[in-house]
């Protein structure tokens, strides 16, 4: 596995831990379809949340959030629809939300995470 993919997996694990710690119920991780991949799907109370996790080891080439372009955001929306079509409705979830989590994980140092709710 390439170093960047390993960093990505590590970031996703960190994000998942943070979310469960805050009472999110993880429904799916790394869900794939022909159009792409959703990093995390979770339920936060009444909201069904689709989460894009971006991980960087430094901000030398920009903040993690800067990697989420409008194009990626609209793909994420299509993926959310595809996930719902494949899995059917989730009981108890009345709203949809798209979140972004930025993980800054420097080599050999504790990671820091930032969570943006409801990006659109």
């Amino acid at each position, binding site marked *: 596995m390439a170093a960047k993919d390993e960093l990505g997996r590590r970031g996703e694990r960190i994000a998942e831990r943070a979310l469960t710690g805050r009472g999110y119920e993880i429904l799916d991780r790394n869900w794939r379809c022909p159009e792409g991949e959703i990093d995390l799907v979770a339920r936060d109370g009444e909201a069904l949340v689709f989460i894009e996790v971006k991980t960087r080891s430094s901000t030398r080439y920009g*903040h993690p*959030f*800067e990697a989420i372009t409008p194009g990626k955001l609209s793909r994420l929306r299509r993926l959310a629809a595809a996930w719902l079509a494949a899995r059917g409705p989730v009981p108890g979830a009345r709203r949809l939300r798209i979140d972004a989590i930025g993980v800054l994980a420097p080599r050999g140092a504790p990671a820091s995470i930032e969570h*943006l*709710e409801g990006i659109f």
Partner: protein
Amino acid sequence: MHVARTHAIALLGLDGTVVDIEADISNNLPGFVLIGLPDLALGQARERVRAAAANAGCPITHRKLTINLSPAALPKHGTAFDLGIAMAALAADRVVPADSVDRVIHLGELALDGRLRPTPGILPSVLAAARSGYRTVLVPAGNAAEAGLVDGIEIVGVTSVRDAAIWHGAALDPIEVEPLLLPPVALESARDEGDLADVAGNRDAVEALQVAAAGGHHLFLLGPPGAGKTMLASRLPGILPDLQVEAALEVSSLRSLSGLAVGERLLTRPPIEAPHHTASPAAIVGGGSGVLRPGAAARAAHGVLFLDEAPEFSPHALDALRQPLESGVITISRAAGSARFPGRFQLVLAANPCPCGNAGSRDQECLCTPFAQRRYLGRLSGPLLDRVDIRLRVERITAAQLRAAGDGGRVSSATARGRVERARALARARLRATPWLVNADVPGTWLRSPAGVPERGATAVLDRALERGGITMRGYDRVLRMAWTLADLDDAPRPDAGHVGRALLLRRAAA
């Protein structure tokens, strides 16, 4: 609430309006939105501010940043808003204290490395800030001297975004950087206008030049090539009195607006502008589609506008001068708005009498047809020439005249300026209760009022010329105005017959 506000100045011509720069940071993906009618250069502030702040070590937020320039309907142009945008963004992010930023006007363009570049239009902007009651202005270090010309307002010159943030109280360590400066220029000595004493012979022309300077009369020099028209015209600013503070600020403001260096002292000498005869109307009076820039006539305000080879100018360019000559103000109206520039200049026109240049001269024969001659000077429109009081025929100097003139009797610029200043002081004292400053401004009604009539019987020669149809009523007034200037130069209380006679000669010397 992640909101902060600071202020900058939007310039339209020389008039500045305070603009509020509001910054809002919302919890969303990184983005930078700039609203409030920015032009292209201002819209690109997004990229400059982001890069400059990051490279100065105080990056702006990684959330969504919205900058609003208010009043939103006022068109804004240029790059002087960069510093304000950066400070508002940093204040909204709690990097710098918002209350400190709110009290201050920020001006200056950012370089990508975070330093501040010298920016055009700082002086008029600082003037507008002072008039709007602001106490402090942050300007690029390269413009600090220029901004310091304005009294009653604290000027803080900063070298970089980081420097500005630290001034506001940000918890950052200072980093020494080389300030960006304008190339130094020697302002006064750069203009080699020569001395009036260089003019050999041509006693009449030298005298007429002093009359023009003393009374603020516009001047038309007509003569063959080589008669010294350009030499005479270039010596007119040298014999004009020093500029008053108000006028000097306007002259320096126009330099600043044109992107020229202003220097540490106010320019006290009147400017001279000599546009080439291919100049367009917009080059003469000012214009531009997005940004309204001053033209040669505005840059000549409080000084001399010299149009050499006047008939060669396009009639449109010449007639564009009629409005400023009438009102002393240049108003440029475009879709983006209308700008006002000062337009009280002294006009000097120079022309050859015909296309070959020799009509009426004693030593060489004119080769032009009468029709060509007529058409040549006919290009100067009547309404324009109507405003020109002194019309002087200048002749080439013969060798005999040159020997006869010798070195005696020459007048130096310093002496002439002294005479001009005394004459102007007399005129000012006489016109104290009126809105006019120099004799050339005075209307006909004043000239016929008890305060303005010459000595009894002094106008006999003029009255005869009027009866014979030699001059018009308008010309009559013009002669009287010049007679007053001649009287002022002679320190006489009122014009006598001699002054009126000489004034008539100055008027009728050509065409």
